[in-house]
């Protein structure tokens, strides 16, 4: 005795008795348009029954697609940690004495400058960069002869160059905002890091209006 043949289902055929393509109907159901009947479907019981069945079948897929997926909390930090390892890290050597050297990473200087700039009215976005790669290489080369033997690779002295790319709000006076950034960032780096000579280059490269808020 042989097992009975399983009943043929809608998905075992390529077309309905009316000639409608099952894949096209499945696509329609998957788009959530199972109830949006065209002229033929309005009068076709085969199509209406198939669309109803396929819509129910696809429902759990749509439900899964709608489940929100949050990234793991440490993902951004993990990525940026790896990225920073890939970047040639530049150090400012603030002080070299008999008991050792005091150094600070250029990226920390850049972050302090950026945060200081972001607090200034009119500034919408501020991105910080301290000592661009090529400039850093030249500065390191220039200061190499003066470097204390205990100091690691870096720019010797209490001097820093910070570049800030800034977007301001539409209508804000660019020159006044830029000067205020230079003043406040300079103060911040002098007070918080102990840098003496600070050069703050401000590039205003975008102007945003209210519609740009997201």
């Amino acid at each position, binding site marked *: 005795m042989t097992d009975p043949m399983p009943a043929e*289902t809608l*998905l075992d055929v390529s077309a309905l008795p009316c000639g409608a393509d*099952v*894949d096209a109907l*499945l*696509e329609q159901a*998957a788009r959530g348009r199972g109830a949006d009947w065209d002229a033929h479907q309005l009068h076709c019981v085969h199509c209406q029954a198939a669309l109803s069945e*396929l819509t129910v*079948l*696809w429902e*759990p*897929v*749509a*439900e*899964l*697609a709608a*489940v929100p*997926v*949050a*990234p*793991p909390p440490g*993902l*951004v930090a*993990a*990525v*940026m940690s*790896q*990225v*920073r390892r*890939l*970047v040639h890290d530049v150090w400012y050597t603030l002080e070299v004495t008999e008991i050792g050297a005091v150094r600070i990473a250029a*990226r920390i200087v*850049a*972050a302090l400058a*950026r945060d200081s700039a*972001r*607090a*200034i*009215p*009119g*500034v*919408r*976005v*501020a*991105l*910080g*960069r301290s000592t*661009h*790669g090529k400039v850093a290489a030249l500065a390191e080369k220039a200061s190499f002869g003066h470097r204390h033997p205990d100091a690691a690779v870096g720019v010797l002295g209490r001097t820093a160059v910070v*570049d800030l*790319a800034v*977007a301001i*709000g539409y209508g804000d006076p660019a020159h006044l905002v830029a000067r205020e950034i230079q003043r406040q960032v300079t103060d911040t780096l002098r007070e918080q890091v102990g840098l003496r000579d600070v050069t703050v280059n401000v590039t205003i*490269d*975008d102007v*945003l209006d209210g519609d*740009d*808020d*997201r």
Partner: protein
Amino acid sequence: MKAAAQAATPVVSDAYLVARARDGYLDAYELLVQRHSALAYRVALRLTGNHHDAQDVAQEALTAAWENLDRFQGGSSFSTWLYQIVTRRALNKVTRGGDDRSLELLPERADPAMETAEAAERDFKVDAVTDALLALPFAQRTVIVLHHFEGLSYAEVASVTGATEPAVRSHLFRARRALAKTLEEWK
């Protein structure tokens, strides 16, 4: 206060941030990572089927995007480019991983209120779809995830996968039918 709050919110385009990141502004890249880490993880999760592989894939993809930023042409959006990297990394991971992968698709829920009969029923359905999705060949799974889960158009899926639009359409027809067939059998 308002200005400071606005300044902390990214309001600039991805293209602007990509350009600044290329100039060496790590801040700009960090903003891009903050914006797109959810996308990278979500797609990786759907394609690999488990949380740990998804985290690895997302992290690798976002780091690889930084390393290859100079090669990003800007002809497509940053997110399309990231989709490409994530799907390639996910394929590598799945190929290396064999068949002993956990089927855990979502991280554990912390909210006990979700543990109702209704939620259990939904979890069952979600698990069934997850299994059905993972049973598809990788290429079919990819087009389903990109089109039906991420909402990408045929043209965008074609751009991500490197296939032609008719090929994407054909893959989708086969994938939808295979997925629906599996769900039908499990009803």
